[in-house]
Structures are given as structure tokens and as C-alpha cells.
């Protein structure tokens, strides 16, 4: 990455700038790929950019940083995403 020689405080882009925000989660979104109709609503509305859009428009969830807000489950019109309490399934 290009670094700049400037006399002011400057920050550089980094994944997880505030750490692994996945551990903020109380509820975990669980995706059922069989039900998914690839509408991409969860992808565009995820506030954390942790719904990964694949080349074929299927989606995956980045649990390392997903904050568990549940918006993806809420906007999915075919109920392909359900919320499960963290640690419920061991």
C-alpha cells in the first residue's frame, strides 16, 4: 500500500479496523442455500458488507465480521436466512 509522507495523522484502510466484529453477535444469521433465489437483497442491505456476493449471485456470510444485526434475515422475502442464538448449535 502507498504510504504518504504528510505532517498530519493519517489512517490506512484495514479490514477489521475495530477488531473481529463477529464477536459482537448475539444472533447468528444462518443461510439456507436451497431456499435462496439470488435476489441479492441481503447483499445490498447488509450494513457491514459481510454478505459476500459470489460470481453466480449466490451469497455467503462472513462470520468473522458479521455483527448479527439481522437485517439480512428481515429483508429476505423467501426466508432463506434465519437467526439463531450464538452458541445454540455446538
Amino acid at each position, binding site marked *: 500500500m502507498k504510504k504518504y509522507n504528510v505532517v498530519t495523522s493519517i*489512517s490506512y*484502510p484495514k479490514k477489521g*479496523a475495530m477488531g473481529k466484529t463477529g464477536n459482537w453477535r448475539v444472533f447468528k444469521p444462518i443461510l439456507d442455500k436451497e431456499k435462496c433465489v439470488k435476489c441479492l437483497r441481503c*447483499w445490498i442491505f447488509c450494513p457491514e*458488507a459481510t454478505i459476500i456476493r459470489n460470481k453466480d449471485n449466490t451469497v455467503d456470510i462472513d462470520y468473522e465480521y458479521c455483527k*448479527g*444485526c*439481522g437485517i439480512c434475515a*428481515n429483508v429476505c422475502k423467501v426466508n432463506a436466512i434465519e437467526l439463531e442464538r450464538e452458541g445454540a448449535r455446538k
Partner: protein
Amino acid sequence: MALKDLPTKECYIPGSAACPGCPATIALRIVYKALGKNTVKVVPACCTAVIESLHPHTSFDIPTMNIAFEAAAAGASGVEAGLRMQGKTDTTVVAWAGDGGTYDIGIQALSGALERNTNFIYICYNNEIYSNTGIQRSGATPYGAWTTTTVLGKTEFRKEMGEIIMAHHIPYSAQTCIAYPEDLFKKLRKAKSINGPKYIEIMAPCPPGWRFPMEKTVEMGTMAVETGAWALYEVEKDKITFNGKSKLILEGKIDRKPIDDWIIYQGRFRHLFRPKKDTKRIKEIEEHIEKMWERYRSCYL
């Protein structure tokens, strides 16, 4: 345009300081998709100055300059002039501020930049409060809403920033909402293509500020539009066009949903429902919105 046509490129990087369910980051992701990497953003004091995360790291993959609360548009004017002097006229300069930084403290710098014909896009993400400092009322807070400085509910109605902007007769301005990503994307792309000052305001329902569950951010945005509390429109060379559901409401093709459908889910209006329904104040909210639409119809239809 469908969602699959929106670019995959992300300039918002996961793992930021934003609250779960944050409307500002939903908006930012789409703004970045529309404007692309060749963009410089100026951010005053507001939630976004926290969301960008802690030095020496940032969650934004777009050059961003932080500036004092009142100075977003002044700072952007300087950045634009600097880039112009270097011959970098293809870079999009954006000021990105909250409603406090826009309606209240930043309005003077904003009005000045519009009047000077600065070539930039001013974006206000409107969460209807000063949320960064713990939920104080702003000029955008609606009547009746609880904030920490309006504990019994705000006693004044909000300003119409869109119409204040219109009085500057700039080439392009628009109102949009995080619940309508295609609308947001199209308006940003249009603003990027036009020379001169542009203003875009994004309705951004904030879960901790409005006191609703964090999974309902998008739903609250949809209901703001469907109840008519917020209108989607764009103004090009003084000609106003309403968009989507707002167009149908304007033309009387659909009815606005009752305001109850929106505010009942927001804890900031809880005192209007419990212990007893405050029908008087709810009616005042409803009548104020109706009056706004009557004005829209008489002026713009």
C-alpha cells in the same frame, strides 16, 4: 435497473465501529458503488467520523478528510479548488454530513458553497438526530419525537431542507432513502455526471436513536416513504420529479399509509401510545404531513 446491476466493488471495509444495523453504512456502501474510487470525501463531526474507526486504521477505502462540525461544505470547497489547481478535475468531491451538520450548524457553509457554484456533491444522511453525541434533537427531528433534549417529545415540526436547497437553484438536488438502493444509486450517478453544486439527502433510520430493533432499519425506511413522512424526489434545473411510491402518492394513485404504521415501531414515539394513546398529537403529526403533501401538489404537480 436491478440489484444485480449494482457494482460488486466495495470501498466500505467490514469490521468498523458502526452500530449493528447502521443506516449510514448501508448508504455509504451504495454511495461508494455509485461514485467509484476516484472520489474524495470530507466528513465533519458526526457518527461517520467514528464509523471510520480508530487511527492508524480506517474502514473506508476512499480518501477521507475529517473537519470541524460546521465546516463540511467549506472543507469540500477547499479540496475541490486544490484538485482543480492540480488539474485533477475528474475526481468527485463529496461532503458527507449528518442532519445536525447540515440543517443546523453546517447550513451557512453549505449555503455559501452552493452560492459559489462549487463543483461538488453534498450528501446529508438524515437520521433525524444528533446521534453521535447521544441523541439530541436537530432541525430534522420530527414533531413529537423523544430525544435526550426533548424528553416529552419535540414541540416543533422539522424543517424542509429540500426546499431550502431548492431556493439556491442549483443544477441538481434529490431526496432518497436507504430502503431504495436503486433510487439512491441512480441519483448519485446522475449527480456525479453534472457539473456544479449537487445536494442529496438520504433518509437514514437509526436503531439506537429512534429506539427500534436493529433488524428493522430497512423496514423503517420503507415505511417513512409509504406513510409520506419522507418523499423521494429529484430537482433538475428547477424542475421537480417525484419518484417511486412518492410519485403515486403525489398523483393520488395510492393513499399514504397511516403514520401509526411507522411511529408505533419506534420507541422515540412510545409516549404517544403508552400509557394512553395521545390521539391529539398523533393527529397533529398526520395533519402536518397532509399539509406538506397538499403544498407539494399545489406547487409541483
